[in-house]
């Protein structure tokens, strides 16, 4: 039968297997949380990529990728370089060199903004000169949604990075925050990795 369970002392016995008390370390929750978010976002992107691939060649009319798309080399180089500058920013912060970190962060935000601008330019050209909108055909639908979803993530990333840049500029970002900056950089590297996939699928495979 169930007996009256008396109050159980909350402190457990000292671990007999390890009485010396070696540190009990678990992963940093910021990193784990960001990885989870990246997994979820990857799943969303995969669905858009699948839709893109599924509809390659199925448009009934309108411009095709080969007709209107050009390789966005410049923007890509900028975006991928921004990952490198961010990596250096994190490395600098880990060593406590806040002003170097600020400089590298500024570079990251600049390069990311240039990428966005180049995408904007490309879209202007496609809409006004090639007549390709999201409504035009299946290619337009899948192209704008996939590249647009990515661009939205870039915007969010840039907002976060600019915030950190601002804080860093006023000397509020120090060595003890390096783990948190690293979590943000994980997000940014993810955004870049997605661009690599989008680039391959849209501009290489699909054309």
């Amino acid at each position, binding site marked *: *039968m*169930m*007996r*009256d369970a008396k109050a159980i002392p909350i402190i457990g016995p000292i671990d007999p297997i390890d009485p010396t008390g070696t540190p009990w370390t678990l992963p940093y929750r910021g990193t784990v949380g960001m990885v989870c978010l990246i997994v979820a976002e990857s799943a969303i992107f995969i669905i858009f990529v699948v839709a893109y691939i599924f509809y390659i060649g199925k448009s009934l009319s309108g411009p095709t990728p080969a007709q209107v798309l050009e390789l966005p080399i410049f923007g890509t180089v900028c975006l991928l370089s921004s990952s490198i500058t961010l990596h250096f920013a994190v490395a600098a912060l880990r060593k406590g060199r806040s002003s170097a970190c600020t400089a590298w962060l500024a570079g990251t935000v600049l390069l990311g903004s240039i990428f966005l601008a180049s995408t904007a330019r490309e879209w202007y050209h496609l809409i006004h000169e090639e007549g390709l909108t999201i409504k035009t055909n299946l290619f337009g639908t899948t192209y704008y949604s996939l590249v647009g979803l990515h661009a939205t993530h870039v915007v969010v990333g840039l907002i976060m990075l600019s915030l950190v840049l601002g804080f860093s500029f006023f000397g509020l970002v120090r060595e003890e925050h390096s783990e948190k900056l690293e979590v943000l950089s994980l997000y940014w590297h993810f955004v870049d990795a997605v661009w690599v996939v989008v680039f391959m699928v849209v501009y290489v495979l699909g054309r």
Partner: protein
Amino acid sequence: MSLFPRRQMTGCSKVRLASVRAFWVLVCCVVLCRCTATAESPTSIFAPAATPAHSIFDLSMLVLSITLAIFLIVAGLLLYALIRYRHRPEDAHHEPAQVYGSNQIELSWTVIPILIVVMLFLTTARVIIGTQAIPKPSNAMNVTVIGHQFWWEYRYPKLGIVTANELHIPVSNVANSMPTYLNMSSADVVHSFWVPRLAGKTDVIPNRVNTMWIDPEQPGLYVGQCAQYCGMQHAKMLIRVYAQSPADFAAWISQQKQPGRQDFAGNPAAAEGHAVFMHNACINCHAISGTVATGRFGPDLTHLASRDTIGSGAIQNTPENLRKWVDDPNSLKPGCLMPAMHLNDHDLDAITAYLTQLR
């Protein structure tokens, strides 16, 4: 302080629980057998009348017996354990032996289910291939089925016939094998063609052609209905399949090939109705062969009076019902896409007279 009522749920109550459960299982079995035996429902999957339905029936018997056996064994063991190992008052102060696991046992009840799964899978695969991956015989009857909200269009391309809501096909047996192949697509949303006694269902999807085949052995009427929610009147998108002997089918074909009847001798109302029909919006949606009405949005009406029902099985095809339908279809099938035509009584009578002579 005991936290359990004096009259604890002892083994007696547990046996009661178990017997209640066993009782229900027995009731379900009896009920099921009764249904399958008498097949009083015209849509029972246990009364197959064509090869696809037969092969599914055979597979289902195998699957049912295996799952029933598994249920009896596992549920039996569970029942036994709950009764045999129930807590008794003398057990009050000591815990049973704590057994944490056993690798051999885990292995055995992993391997045995895997074997059962493999066997079930292979049997199932054989039926799938036998239904979906066999070549089409050259003498098959081809019918194009187009699903609409909320009616069925049937076209016989090689025979030049277009009709609606009632599918006539030849019987097919060992002596005279003539399966009917249905090539199906939809004009709007996703539907599903299901006549349980003939075959499993196949979805009818826009921008896609799905094919299924049926070969009813006996002449008769086989009913079914749309099985994929398609909007307001999904419930009344009924299917009627008339399997006919070769002679009857040939007669039906030649009748359907005739243009719309215009037998107005001694029937001035029908003549007037013809005029009303051709001068109203009816012709935008409906077609009557041999007239200016060539609309394809609604059912072909050339031989409307030869059909047993209107509104795709929604109501019996009688003159009173037909008049009510033309007056206000939504009163009989709310949500159907035919609007009320706002005709006056005189025109309604005339049109009814015209339509009822379209045999």
